[in-house]
């Protein structure tokens, strides 16, 4: 269908505005804009900024649900503005607000530093005793596809903060680590190359760690990438309890098997085409 033939509908954007330099509290301002089929909320915000109110602030980057910058509260649900089409969630009115459970920097821009501080504290990287090998790899660690599958879904997290905004525990307990950092901890705990579970457990099993999770499951419902942080937290709890009861299987991190490029090639992989340049 040609662009010009698509029906245009007027949608009222009720946007939370807040400038800490001028405003004492956030307030809602309404903008009515023409919306065509296929327009995302991010497109709508751009339209407002370019044609109606240039002072509106929000955060975005990739426009394709990869960078995790444009997390915001749309009609009461935390999600990404770039992969939410306006007409999928609104017929006449759309409320747009900043992610809850975070301080507001300005308008729709949340301060995600608290989340990243917690994330960093849980050592979200492969931690091993052999630092030299990690910093200057001389070989490859063997990891089977099944072992990869055990943590793969948790690697899809883009740190958008939607799960943190949806978490009811975090709404009252600001020191609770939250779904994203805990899911990241579980992602590395499950990685067979990793040996840092003991260090992460000190924090993850602390007074504001995994055991504060009520298993409301809102984090998993909110995640725009289909990650299941609630599941990760339950796994984390189980692992912590098994460790405490000394029932956990002793896991040694996987070992280096061979040098780079010296591995056994997988069968039935066609040869690379002949170089033409």
């Amino acid at each position, binding site marked *: 269908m040609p662009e010009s033939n698509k029906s245009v509908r007027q949608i009222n954007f009720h946007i939370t505005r807040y400038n800490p330099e001028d405003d004492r509290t956030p307030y809602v301002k309404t903008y009515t804009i023409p919306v065509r089929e296929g327009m995302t909320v991010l497109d709508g915000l751009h339209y407002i900024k370019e044609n109606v109110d240039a002072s509106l602030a929000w955060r975005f980057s990739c426009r394709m649900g990869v960078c995790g910058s444009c997390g915001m509260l749309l009609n009461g649900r935390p999600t990404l503005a770039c992969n939410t089409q306006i007409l999928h969630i609104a017929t006449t009115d759309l409320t747009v607000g900043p992610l809850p459970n975070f301080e507001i920097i300005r308008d729709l821009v949340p301060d995600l530093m608290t989340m990243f501080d917690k994330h960093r504290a849980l050592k979200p990287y492969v931690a091993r005793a052999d630092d030299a090998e990690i910093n200057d790899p001389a070989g490859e660690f063997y990891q089977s596809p099944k072992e990869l599958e055990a943590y793969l879904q948790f690697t899809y997290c883009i740190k958008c903060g939607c799960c943190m905004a949806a978490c009811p525990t975090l709404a009252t307990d600001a020191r609770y680590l939250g779904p994203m950092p805990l899911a990241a901890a579980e992602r590395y705990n499950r990685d067979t190359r990793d040996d840092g579970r003991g260090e992460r457990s000190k924090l993850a099993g602390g*007074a504001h760690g995994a*055991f*504060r999770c009520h298993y409301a499951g809102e984090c998993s419902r909110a995640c725009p990438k289909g990650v299941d942080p609630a599941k990760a937290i339950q796994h984390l709890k189980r692992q912590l309890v098994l460790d*405490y009861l000394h029932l956990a299987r002793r896991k040694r991190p996987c070992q280096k098997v061979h040098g780079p490029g010296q591995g056994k090639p997988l069968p039935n992989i066609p040869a690379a085409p002949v170089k033409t340049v």
Partner: protein
Amino acid sequence: MRETKYWTWHMAAGVVMLFLLGLHMLIMHLGGMTHLFAPIGGEAVSRANSLFRDGRLFFTVTYILLLGVALYHGLYGLRTILFELTLKPAVERLTTVVLLVVGIGLFGLGAWAAVVTHAIAIAGARG
């Protein structure tokens, strides 16, 4: 690992409570059907039936165990709720200590009552 320890015992206490409260339901609330531990007949809560149960060591131990696990489970739950109010670390520590003292106090009182009742029931049975 302290919080892991607290939570593990919280879960274990919940499982024990499930069993003991099931027993309580069978004896006290479904007594009309089950007639469990009510040899005198009539209501399970009648004085004679109560004295019969109080005189059994099994029930005294069960009362004390139920009291212990219920107090632990409940007070840990209360502590969790309080901790979600974003208390200062010093207030959190104080909360833990206060709940521990309250729990031990109530457990001591309840255990004493169960033991005394057991002694009275045995003395009554001997005439």
